[in-house]
């Protein structure tokens, strides 16, 4: 039978007799709600030198909360890196994205950029430019877990009520990690290294917290548990909430680009019939009038694919009546580029213009097979042409013809007539061009405002 006793560092608050100055050995465990916190329960008891009391021993069990601290700090590092990368982009410029399991490592994988620019990287994107990065509350949660675990680790009288809450707290990042890992696998198709770092930190934190909890002996903790848990939950929520509030208050909000746009279409008439209708944009949305839009794309441009996905994910694409202007960044047909960032893009564009009814299918195919088609365009254009003709028989005999080349040329000239920048993608809403800095993180915010002030097509 255990001899219940106060912690070996007695304080007045560990006693329920404020007047007493001496530790009082107790024969029975306390039953009151406030008592439970005052008793060390996990370590084996040892005889004191005097042999008169049992005191808690420093044991291997005490290390587990500290391992939770380490895991949580690791989570803090990855969350901070992700938050930093996100905030860097708030200036509207392109910056390198921290993307490595080992911080500082030069992993140049695209997964982190994909994740950062995806609509899953932040919330409330239509209300605030870029929204609130989800890595920010993650940073706060890990910081709270680290602090709480450190407190539990320091506590002489650690109890299951403490470790139980710690275990519950670590479940939050585990659940969030599972959700976002699923999103990465099913929606993004790739994983970002820093996100994986967060998943690992979450998993380790949970395992260590579980062990810490198991190693802490069961005690009757009564109704006090819920009161404490509520308090601690409130503390954690306060940390996360304060960080979010701070972010909302300090995030840059003075953005001229959103109000003024970046140019207008001056020649909208499509005399050469080279604008292609984006099929999903022609589908009616109940009760919604659409606003005319023009998207300048290169079918082999990864950023164009990204914009298409962001528009789709935002749901705002459904409010647009989208025409596509092909602008292949391939020197085979585009005299404005001296090299070919996207070799083969001229041929794919020809295929789209050869069969306007199938253009959306060609574009979807090109987006889905960009890397392979780019490689074919670079090494074997005949094979690329054969691939397109085999996949889309209605373009056979047209791709590579003078008429198809002339149509691509007309597309490029539409851009010249409107003095567009030589780049893709570009998005015009009701004739007004969304600035490039507003087409990634700020897309939903900017587009919502432009849609609100544009007259819809009835």
């Amino acid at each position, binding site marked *: 039978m255990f001899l219940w006793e106060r912690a070996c560092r007695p*304080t*007045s*608050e*560990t006693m329920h007799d404020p007047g007493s100055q001496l530790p009082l050995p107790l024969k029975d465990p306390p039953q009151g709600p406030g008592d439970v*916190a005052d008793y060390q329960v996990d370590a084996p008891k040892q005889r004191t030198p005097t042999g008169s009391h049992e005191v808690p021993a420093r044991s291997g069990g005490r290390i587990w909360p500290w391992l939770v601290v380490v895991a949580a700090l690791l989570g*803090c590092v990855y969350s*901070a890196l992700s938050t930093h990368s996100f*905030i*860097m982009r*708030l*200036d*509207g*410029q*392109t910056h390198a994205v921290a993307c490595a399991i080992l911080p500082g490592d030069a992993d140049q994988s695209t997964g982190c950029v994909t994740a950062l620019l995806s609509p899953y990287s932040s919330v409330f994107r239509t209300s605030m430019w870029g929204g609130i990065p989800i890595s*920010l509350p993650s*940073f*706060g949660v890990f*910081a*709270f877990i*680290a*602090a*709480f675990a450190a*407190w539990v680790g*320091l506590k002489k009288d650690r109890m299951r009520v403490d470790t139980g809450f710690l275990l519950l707290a670590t479940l939050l990042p585990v659940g969030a990690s599972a959700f976002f890992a699923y999103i990465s696998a099913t929606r993004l198709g790739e994983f970002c290294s820093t996100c994986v770092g967060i998943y690992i930190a979450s998993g380790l934190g949970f395992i260590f917290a579980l062990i810490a909890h198991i190693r802490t002996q069961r005690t009757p903790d009564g109704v006090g548990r819920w009161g*404490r848990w509520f308090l601690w939950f409130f*503390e954690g929520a306060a*940390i996360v909430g*304060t*960080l979010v509030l*701070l*972010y909302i208050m*300090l*995030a*840059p909000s*003075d*953005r001229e*680009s959103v109000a003024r746009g*970046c140019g207008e279409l001056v020649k909208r008439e499509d*005399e*050469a019939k080279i604008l292609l209708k984006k099929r999903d944009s022609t589908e009616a949305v109940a009760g919604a009038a659409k606003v005319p839009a023009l998207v300048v794309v290169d079918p082999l441009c990864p950023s164009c694919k990204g914009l298409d996905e962001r528009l789709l994910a935002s749901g705002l694409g459904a409010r647009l009546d989208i025409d596509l202007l092909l602008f292949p960044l391939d020197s085979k*047909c585009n*005299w*404005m580029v001296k090299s070919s960032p996207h070799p083969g893009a001229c041929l794919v564009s020809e295929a789209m213009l050869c069969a306007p009814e199938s253009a959306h299918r060609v574009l979807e195919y090109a987006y889905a097979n960009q890397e392979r088609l780019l490689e074919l365009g670079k090494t074997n254009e005949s094979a690329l042409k054969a691939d397109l003709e085999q996949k889309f028989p209605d373009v056979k005999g047209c791709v590579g013809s*003078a*008429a198809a*080349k*002339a149509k691509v*040329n007309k597309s*490029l000239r539409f*851009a*010249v007539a*409107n*003095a*567009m*920048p*030589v*780049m893709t993608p570009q998005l015009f809403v009701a004739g007004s061009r969304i*600035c*490039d*800095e507003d087409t990634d993180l700020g897309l939903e915010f900017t587009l919502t405002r432009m849609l609100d002030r544009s007259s819809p097509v009835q």
Partner: protein
Amino acid sequence: MGAMSYVSHLVPLALALAVPAVMVSGWLSDAEARLAVEEPRQSKAITATVAEEGYCTADLKRIVRRIAGACGLLGEQGRGCRPADATKVVSLQGEEFNALFLPLQDRVRIIQYDMGKSELDEGALRAVEEAWADRGGASFFFVVSRASPEGSTDKNRELSEARAKAVLDHLMKRFNDPDIERQVGLLWLGEEFAQLDDKFCDWKRSRTGEKCDANEINRSAFIAWIDCAI
């Protein structure tokens, strides 16, 4: 939990709030400062324009502009320049006029005709279409037709005019493009001005591989897009 215990509980929590708050505030402050001073991203991209190749010297552009205007390309006063007009407009000797086109060797296709004929054969049709499709960023398409010196001057003048118009007719029939009206300039020279020498046999011809001499090369239309912003 007593007061001291709660204080020991709050200290790490305070750190958990303070450290991220300071970091995030600093990053946000930096982002706002950069946003205020950095140029918008789109200003770094060049603007889409028509082509302006290295061979577009001031002299060439001046001549092209004169021909384009006088031969009905830029205005509405009709299409095509006859030899007498060309001499006045160009103000150049025949050799100097031909020399203007030397830097365009990669762009030019020479459409060849049978003697006394203006019909386009299969190779000529293909060459005309290829030349038209190979527009790139060019603004003006020139058809400069000639006739070999056999026959009368008047007959050769008519023949070279028919040859130039055969190219234009095929373009209009094949491409049905309203831009053709605005962008194709015709200049027929008969046998009177700027005859080609047999060095032009080495250029891209619609009858590549067939016999070529000074007479053969002048039974032709010299077609090219000119990559100059006029």
